[in-house]
């Protein structure tokens, strides 16, 4: 079979020594039947892959990439899984919630099915330069779908705008022309739609002569940086950009936040892009903050379960959500705030806080919200 041949060949799966470092590090294995080591083995030895495709747990993976990070042979198990999802997507064999998210992205440019003309609504009172209105700026602030539409995440976008304005950054946004970046779309298996979004976005960036992009989300950042393969622009996550503003003295703090703060490394910022220092640097720069790191931090950080399209997937896993595990760990550390730098981490952790009823003990905040509060 061609598909099977190409998976094994494409990802050099005969190089796998079945050591099990991938599955041993897999956060989802705590809750799900997904066994990435076994999956790789099955892909290499089975003549017919159809029974593998039937495994519902294929949709449990958050594509956090720890398996690839831990692989001593340098293989990419999580990419194999994404490829299997794309075979399923090609066949139309995807969960209904994924199908809807993909369709909405195709129709409206965002996976939530929100109207495109309302994308910019959160910022109408903010006097921001808007590329789609003919404005020009040095930096494109790429807001992202969730931070454009979700009222909770709009607070994060507003905090970023406040910070940029304070530091006199010459920035603009794309307004209603902004489109889904496609990071999650690719991970839900819709390679074709991803390529379309990528082509549309690159064209948009070129039209507006954009050279430097700063994103709210670590997911948008990841795909712009690693999957767009276009060197006419530089993409940065806001933590990198803001850390530099602080370092260069362009941003200073006037208020204290007297709290014990820990930090949840977003997988798409940390594991996939090695950005560990900048978020910690920002937090340590804010006066009053006592920073404590999780025991499981940096590349060992526990995934929030929000990546890989999981925001749209009715996962087969059961048991305690990893977000809840994380909140309990943070409380044990004595943290009063768990800070993060990713919209999905924020939502999942905040959900976990309310689910376990600890809202009076701990807050979940985006780093930039703390920055905006302290300037």
């Amino acid at each position, binding site marked *: 079979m061609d598909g099977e041949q190409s998976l094994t060949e494409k990802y050099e799966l005969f190089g796998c020594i079945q050591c099990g470092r991938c599955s041993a590090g897999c956060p989802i294995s705590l809750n799900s039947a997904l066994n990435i080591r076994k999956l790789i083995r099955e892909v290499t030895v089975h003549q017919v892959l159809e029974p593998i495709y039937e495994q519902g747990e294929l949709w449990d993976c958050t594509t956090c990439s720890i398996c690839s990070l831990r692989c001593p042979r340098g293989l990419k198990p999580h990419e194999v899984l994404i490829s299997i999802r794309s075979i399923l997507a090609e066949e139309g064999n995807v969960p209904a919630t994924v199908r809807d998210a993909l369709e909405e992205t195709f129709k409206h440019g965002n996976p939530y099915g929100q109207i495109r003309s309302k994308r910019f609504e959160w910022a109408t009172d903010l006097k921001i330069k808007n590329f789609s209105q003919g404005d020009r700026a040095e930096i494109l602030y790429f807001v992202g779908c969730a931070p454009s539409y979700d009222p909770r995440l709009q607070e994060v976008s507003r905090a970023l705008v406040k910070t940029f304005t304070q530091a006199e950054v010459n920035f603009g946004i794309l307004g209603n022309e902004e489109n889904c970046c496609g990071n999650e779309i690719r991970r839900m298996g819709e390679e074709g739609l991803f390529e379309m979004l990528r082509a549309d976005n690159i064209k948009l960036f070129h039209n507006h002569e954009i050279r430097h992009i700063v994103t709210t989300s670590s997911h948008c950042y990841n795909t712009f940086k690693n999957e767009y393969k276009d060197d006419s622009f530089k993409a940065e996550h806001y933590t990198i950009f803001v850390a530099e503003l602080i370092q260069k003295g362009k941003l200073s703090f006037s208020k204290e936040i007297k709290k014990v703060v820990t930090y949840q490394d977003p997988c798409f910022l940390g594991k996939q892009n090695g950005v560990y220092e900048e978020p910690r640097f920002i937090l340590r720069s804010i006066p009053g903050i006592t920073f404590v790191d999780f025991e499981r931090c940096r590349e060992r950080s526990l995934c929030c379960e929000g990546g890989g399209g999981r925001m749209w997937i009715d996962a087969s896993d059961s048991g305690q959500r990893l977000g809840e595990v994380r909140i309990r760990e943070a409380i044990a550390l004595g943290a009063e705030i768990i800070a993060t730098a990713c919209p999905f981490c924020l939502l999942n952790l905040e*959900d976990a806080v309310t689910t376990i009823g600890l809202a009076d003990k701990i807050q979940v905040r985006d780093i930039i919200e703390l920055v905006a509060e302290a300037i």
Partner: protein
Amino acid sequence: MGRIFVLIEHRKGAIRDITWEMLIKGRELALRSGGELTALLLGYQIRNLAEKLVQRADEVLVVEDEKLSNFNGEIYQRVLSKLISEYKPALTLIGHTSFGMELAGQLELPITTDCIDLCLENGALKAVRQMYTGKVNAEISFIGAPSYIVTVRPDVFPAEGQQTGRGEIKYLSLPIEEIKYKKFIEYIEPAVGEVDITRADILVSVGQGIGDKKNISMIAELSELMGGVLACSRPIVDKKWLPKERQVGLSGKTVKPKLYLAIGISGAFQHISQIKGGHIIAINKDPRAPIFGVADYGIVEDLFKIVPVLTSKLKEIKAG
């Protein structure tokens, strides 16, 4: 137009709604054209169903055989083809259902499928079906054939109508051969208690604000009094207070009710973005809850004060 056949669709001893809908439409056509409406009932131990059908048709033709116990496209096709060639109906109506779709195409007669209307124009039959995902209605005319098949979309015609039959049941004995290719295996039932919140007109949805599992029963009672279906947000499922199938949201279900009553739901975006259409009424004690941003009406108050009042009012109304 001469005789009009309606193929009765039934499953496990119950007549399906599409049958009544086709009989209503068939009766209308028969009256206009001076034709005769014949119900075809194929099955086993179905005499009680025939009794119900005679009140709606001029004649009920019954073929009873153990081999017809469950729907099987192959046997149905053979029986139906025999009946059509013997009785020569001008028109045979079959439901555009999984049952009908499997069968209708095999009959080797001129066919138009998934029709949303049928009428007579100068004595000739005209069918209406949708094209381009419902953007265009196409009128289909039939050309010179003695017998046509039309499959009818469910839920288009009313199921209730006058009892207009003159009541004649004919039991036919047809030799039914053994068949080779298709075999009935089993009915797969949805899990017990499974509900479909995506099809409910009224959803009464409960969130974190309910506080305790034991309080869910109070919302269930309200929902029942309102003729609604109970739904919830993700935390309620996470706590295993209600099953997953009742969850509204990005990782749950997208719903399109006419009325969505959100009780103790803060209104996270992942939840509210999956309520499409209809009116939203929210009860929440936090005036800053995002649910009020999308609600048509809102009550800022403790749900434990409001729900009992609603429940007792509804009981009063029901008691007349």
